[in-house]
C-alpha cells in the first residue's frame, strides 16, 4: 500500500518543521518527506500511489496520543467497549491511547493486559496501551506483578480512581517500579478530604453541595513528589486541576525530579460555574475548579510545567447521569472533543501550534516510552491530519463512543480532525 499526502503543512516540533511537505508512505512506514522543490526525489509518483490524499489547507502532525482513557472493557461494556473506545479515539485523531486499569476485573493480571491489547489489535484502529494496577484489585494491600505485567505489554502503573492511600505502599510501589524503570501514574486524591461532589467554594455553598477542597489534590501531589525524591522512580501526575498542584509540580521540576504532569481539556476550558444548573455532565473527579485554577492550568501548559493534555475519557451511560447531581457518576468523555477544545489554546495564543502538538503527541509518547513520534523517513506512519480553523458544532449524537456524557454538546469550535493514519492505514 502506497499513500501520498500532498499540499499539506507538516508540523513537527522535533524537527522545528512547519512547512508544506509531501509525505510518502509505503506499507506502515514513512519513506520520504519532501519539500515542493525536492519532488524530483519522489520514491513513487502520484500514479504509482494507491491513494492520494489532498491535504490542501490542512495540517499534518505526528499521531496524537491520549495517555488517560477508560474503556470499561472487560466488565462494563454497556458504557464502552474496546472497539467503540478505539473508534472514538481514531475519530478524535489519536493513534495511541493508554487505558486505565479500573475495569471489571481490575487490570492486575498479565492475562487481562494481553486481552486488552489483543482486542484492540483485532479492531485495527487506535493502538491500546494498558496501564496496569499498582495493587491487586486496586485495593491498596500489596504490589501487582509489575515485571510480568510489563512483559505482557503494560505501559505504566496506577490505581487511578482508587488511589494508593498507604504512603508505605506508594513508596514500595515506586521503588519496585524503579527496578524496571517503569512509570507510576498517580491520581492524586486524599479520599477523606475529597468526600464531596464538586469544588469547594462559593458555588458549592450556594448550591448546597458538599465541596472538595483544592488541598484534597495538592496534599497527595506533594506526598508523591516527596516519595519520588526518596525513591528516584518516574512519577506522572494525572489530571492536574488546581493552582496549588501546579506550584508543587513546578517545585519538583525545578529540583530536577523525574516528575511529569497532565491536565484534561475540561480543566482549562470550564470552571465550577458549569455545575450551576446541577448539570451532571459537569461532574467529574477531580472537580471543575475556579477561574484562578483554570488560569493557573493554562499558564502551566504555556510554561511547560504541565507536559501533557490527556482526556480522562470516562464513559457512563445515561442511567448514571440522568439522576440527581449527588448521585451521578463522575466523569465525562473526551476523545472526540479533545483536539477541538485544545486548539482553542492556540486560537487564544496561549500555546503555539508546536507546543500543542508536543503536549498531545511528542511528550505523552516520550513519557510512555513509545516509538518516537516524528514525520521523517524510516519512522512509523502514524499521522493526524486536521483543519486548524474549520468551524463545526460538537454533536454527541455523532460520536463513535458508546456514551454521550459530555458537557460540550452543541458547542461550536474551530478545528477538526480530517484523517488519522495508523500504521500506514487511512482510518477515517
Amino acid at each position: 500500500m502506497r499513500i501520498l499526502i500532498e499540499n499539506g503543512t507538516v508540523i513537527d516540533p522535533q524537527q522545528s518543521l512547519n512547512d508544506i511537505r509531501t509525505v510518502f508512505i509505503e506499507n506502515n512506514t514513512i519513506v520520504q518527506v519532501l519539500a515542493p522543490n525536492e519532488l524530483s526525489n519522489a520514491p513513487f509518483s502520484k500514479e504509482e500511489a494507491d491513494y492520494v490524499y489532498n491535504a490542501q489547507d490542512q495540517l499534518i502532525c505526528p499521531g496524537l496520543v491520549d495517555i488517560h482513557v477508560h474503556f470499561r472493557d472487560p466488565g462494563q461494556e454497556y458504557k464502552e467497549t474496546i472497539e467503540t473506545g478505539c473508534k472514538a479515539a481514531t475519530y478524535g485523531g489519536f493513534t495511541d491511547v493508554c487505558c486505565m486499569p479500573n475495569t471489571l476485573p481490575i487490570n492486575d493480571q498479565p492475562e487481562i493486559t494481553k486481552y486488552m491489547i489483543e482486542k484492540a489489535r483485532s479492531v485495527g484502529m487506535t493502538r491500546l496501551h494498558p496501564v496496569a494496577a499498582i495493587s491487586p484489585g486496586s485495593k491498596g494491600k500489596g504490589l501487582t506483578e509489575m515485571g510480568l505485567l510489563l512483559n505482557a505489554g503494560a505501559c505504566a502503573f496506577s490505581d487511578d480512581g482508587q488511589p494508593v492511600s498507604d504512603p508505605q505502599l506508594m513508596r514500595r510501589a515506586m521503588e519496585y517500579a524503579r527496578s524496571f524503570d517503569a512509570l507510576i501514574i498517580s491520581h492524586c486524591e486524599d479520599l477523606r478530604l475529597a468526600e464531596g461532589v464538586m469544588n469547594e467554594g462559593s458555588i458549592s455553598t450556594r448550591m448546597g453541595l458538599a465541596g472538595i477542597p483544592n488541598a484534597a489534590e495538592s496534599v497527595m501531589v506533594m506526598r508523591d513528589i516527596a516519595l519520588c525524591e526518596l525513591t528516584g522512580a518516574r512519577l506522572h501526575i494525572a489530571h492536574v486541576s488546581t493552582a496549588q498542584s501546579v506550584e508543587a509540580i513546578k517545585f519538583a521540576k525545578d529540583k530536577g525530579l523525574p516528575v511529569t504532569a497532565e491536565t484534561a481539556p475540561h480543566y482549562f476550558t470550564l470552571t465550577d460555574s458549569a455545575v450551576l444548573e446541577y448539570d451532571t455532565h459537569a461532574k467529574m473527579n477531580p472537580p471543575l475548579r475556579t477561574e484562578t485554577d483554570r488560569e493557573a492550568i493554562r499558564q502551566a501548559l504555556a510554561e511547560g510545567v504541565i507536559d501533557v493534555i490527556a482526556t480522562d475519557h470516562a464513559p457512563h451511560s445515561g442511567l448514571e447521569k440522568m439522576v440527581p447531581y449527588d448521585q451521578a457518576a463522575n466523569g465525562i468523555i473526551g476523545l472526540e472533543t479533545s483536539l477541538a477544545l485544545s486548539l482553542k489554546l492556540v486560537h487564544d495564543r496561549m500555546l503555539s501550534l508546536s507546543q500543542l502538538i508536543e503536549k498531545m503527541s511528542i511528550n505523552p509518547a516520550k513519557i510512555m516510552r513509545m516509538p518516537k513520534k516524528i514525520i521523517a523517513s524510516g519512522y512509523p506512519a502514524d499521522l493526524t491530519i486536521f483543519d486548524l480553523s474549520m468551524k463545526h458544532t460538537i454533536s454527541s449524537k455523532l460520536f463513535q463512543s458508546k456514551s454521550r456524557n459530555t458537557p460540550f454538546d452543541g458547542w461550536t469550535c474551530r478545528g477538526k480532525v480530517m484523517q488519522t493514519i495508523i500504521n500506514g492505514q487511512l482510518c477515517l
Partner: protein
Amino acid sequence: MDHFHQKHILDMTSLSRQEIDYIIKTAETLKEISERPIKKVPMLRGKSIVHFFHEPSTRTRTSFEIAAKRMSADTFSISASTSSMTKGETLLDTVNTLQAMNPDIIVMRHSASGAPHFVSRHLNASIINAGDGMHAHPTQSLLDMMTVREALGKINGLKVSIIGDIFHSRVARSNIIGFTKMGATVTVAAPCTMIPHGIDKLGARVAKTLDDAVSNADIVMALRIQKERQSNFFFPTEREYAYFYGLTYERLKSMNNNAFIMHPGPINRGVELSSDIADCSESLIMKQVTNGVAIRMALLYLLMGGTRNAHSN
C-alpha cells in the same frame, strides 16, 4: 600472628584482615577433627558455653552445639520459648542471671539488631553473635569465606555477587564487609525495594540487572526470599521473584559458565534457586554447612585462649 586478642565476635567490622585470615587458617586445621572416627578432642574441657537463641535456628544452633561438643565443652541451651523471657523478664536480667552461673562463652542469636553488643557491655563472658536482627552474622560470613578459599584458593581479587533480599539480610551485610575487607569485590542485585539505602557505602556495587551481577561473578550467592515480606510490599509474588531473580541451572549457565553457587540456607526451592542448581556440582552449599562447624570450633578455641590454653591442658 601470635595471639588472638578479641574478646567477643560481634560483627565483621571489628575483625581485622589478619584476624579473619587467622580464624580461617585455624578452622582449616581443626576441620580434620570432624573427619576422625572419634570426633572429640579435649581442647575446651571444663569450659561452659551457653547457647542463647532468641530466634528460631536449626543449622546455626546445631553447628555451634556440635562444634562445642567436639571440643569437649559443656553446653547449655536456652531458647526464647522456654526461657523466662516469655514471663516478661528483660534481656539484661536474663543474661545477668546467666552470668551469675559463670559461663565462659555465650553464643547469642537475637531478633534485635545490636542486642549482642548491648549484652557484651554488661557481661564478663565472651559473646559470639550468632545473628542479630538485620545487622550481622559474622560466623556465617567467616564460613562463607573459608568455603570460597577452599574452592578457589583465594579471596583477594574475586568477584562475589549476592542476589536477593539485601535489605533484611544480616548475612549480606556481614559478607559485603568481610569479603571486601579480604580484597574481593561484592556486587548485589535485587528488586529496588530490597536494596537498602547507602549499601554502596558499605562497599557493594549495585547491579542493574541479574545478568549484570551474574555474568562476571566467581561466586553467586543467593539469599532466601521470605514470603512474609510480601505483606510489607517488598515484592509482589514468588512467581514474579522467581521469574526475574530466581536462578535455574540453565539460566546460570547462559550467563556464566564458571561461577560457584552458595546459599546461607534455608533454601526456598523454586524461588531463589531451582532444585537442579541447589544440587549441582558447582553448588558449595553443603560445604558451607560442613565448614560452619570448623569455623565455630576455631572461634570457640581462639576466644578461650587458643594455643596458650591448649598447651596448658
